[in-house]
């Protein structure tokens, strides 16, 4: 079916009461108002999984994206599938724009569907958005371009080209039935109000890493590949995200890790352990920030002037950013 007609079929449920909906057995996502914590006294699950601590669920709408089986078998559906393929196998399907070993879905789990790992349906409905990162209103296309430049350590695909079009189509399709201009429950990473009980520690973080991360991500954080395929993504070093990426900020990393790591067991780390291991991870060298001005101090001042970034600070006697890992940019 044409997904454009599917929008009408989202059931909008407020406080458990059906307000709107139609009876087609259709693929649109569903929206439900999540009860507030204070009134219900229960922790409300976001679209999937358990509520991460600190997530502000007051009045947040819970959205469930349409199932993959509902992708239509037409030209539109083909573009949705293309976007999904780029998202899950980025190097293979957008090679010229990717400079590391990562796939978009390594950080946006379940092919961009998983709540609390910055799902695409949570993002799509929030753009265009003003971003302090570049002091501008950013279109969704510009947001996607930023991910290629920083998280993928690559370069921005043209805004009007096939790659951005396919990714946008996929995000649009996942968001069917979601209201625009709102922050849905599970959008972004659950960092609201998520603070470390004590200042994060490198030494404690290293212990957490050795006990709960290294078996998958490798003793040196290098990840693991088999038969030429990346299975466990690297956490730092030449094949990881670069110094300009969002995951290099402690609050993003800690919230992502708390909600999603160890993989399949998200939520088992204490808040402190999540911050400690995020600190440990982000205190390692990675490819240079592509906005590097020629001086670490000046680059910090212009682009990393926040306690959440360790770039340009000294950890264990090393000035982070002064010896960036490997090559920079697309290879």
């Amino acid at each position: 079916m044409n997904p454009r007609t599917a929008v009408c079929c989202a059931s909008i449920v407020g406080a458990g009461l059906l307000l709107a909906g139609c009876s087609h057995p259709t693929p649109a996502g569903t929206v439900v108002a999540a009860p507030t914590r204070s009134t219900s006294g229960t922790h409300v699950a976001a679209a999937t999984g358990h509520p991460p601590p600190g997530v502000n669920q007051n009045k947040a709408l819970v959205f469930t994206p349409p199932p993959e089986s509902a992708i239509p078998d037409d030209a539109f559906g083909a573009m949705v599938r293309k976007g999904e393929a780029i998202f899950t196998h980025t190097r293979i399907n957008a090679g010229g724009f990717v400079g590391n070993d990562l796939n978009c879905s390594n950080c946006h789990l379940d092919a961009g569907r998983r709540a609390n790992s910055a799902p695409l349906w949570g993002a799509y409905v929030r753009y265009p958005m003003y971003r302090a990162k570049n002091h501008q209103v950013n279109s969704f296309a510009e947001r996607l371009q930023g991910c290629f430049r920083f998280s993928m350590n690559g370069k921005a695909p043209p805004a009007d080209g096939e790659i951005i079009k396919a990714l946008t189509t996929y995000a649009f399709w996942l968001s069917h039935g979601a209201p625009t201009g709102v922050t849905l429950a599970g959008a972004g990473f659950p960092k609201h109000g998520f603070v470390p009980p004590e200042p994060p520690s490198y030494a404690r973080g290293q212990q957490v890493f050795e006990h709960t991360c290294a078996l998958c991500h490798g003793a040196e954080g290098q990840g693991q590949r088999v038969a030429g395929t990346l299975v466990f993504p690297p956490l730092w070093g030449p094949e990881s995200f670069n110094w300009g990426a969002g995951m290099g900020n402690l609050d993003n990393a800690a919230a992502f890790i708390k909600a999603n790591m160890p993989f399949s067991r998200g939520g088992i780390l204490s808040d402190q352990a999540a911050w400690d291991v995020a600190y440990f991870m982000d205190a390692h060298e990675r490819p240079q920030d592509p906005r590097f001005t020629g001086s670490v101090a000046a680059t910090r001042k212009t682009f990393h002037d926040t306690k959440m970034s360790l770039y340009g600070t000294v950890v264990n006697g090393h000035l982070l950013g002064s010896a960036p890992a490997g090559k920079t940019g697309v290879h």
Partner: protein
Amino acid sequence: MNTALHTLRTIMHPATRHATLAMMLLALPTAAAFATDAATIAQHGNGRGAPACASCHGAEGGGQAAAGFPRLAGLNAAYLRKQLDDFANGTRANPVMQPIAAALNESERKTMAEYYHRMPVPAALSKPVTRMPADHSLGARLALRGLWGKQVPACVACHGPHGIGVGAHFPPLAGQPAAYIAAQLNDWKQGTRHNDPLALMQHVSSALDEQDIHAVAAWFAAQPLAAKGTTP
């Protein structure tokens, strides 16, 4: 051995059971008294209670699909070593393997793990013995996409493409007998196997129902193995 034989009797098809029992009984008396050589243990046992590994896991280490005995050839040495140690210390409870692993001393367990690690994957296993489930089958969906609503990721996200296995902690599933895979998932679910790091598999297994387990085991059993053995 009695418990082991009894268990074999209850889990194996009659035809295979007879063949296997005959092999085991033949193997036992010929075992060298103080065997430590890996090939000897594999083919004849160690003469101190551990029978020939080959009697169940096959002369080429390929396992026996019908009986649900897993392939050992080409598996990661550290993984095999840990499993033997865990059988011996009971964190992986198994009536067949427990007494056998306990009858091997520490250096024999290490030697056997390395022996099977170095063994090439038998050419016969390069083609799957069972039929491939459809692309959109339940098994394929679980293996390739998971069941995220229950916090179950795609199996291949840790076990590698087609389940070929990754490193010391994520063993190959491709081409392993469906009965073996299903038995492991059930053991984790019931807690008789609890030697998995971070309780990853206990957690995943508890979210799967019988139909899921059956379907996903069948999918992996049908995955082709490269004859040379791509497992690390």
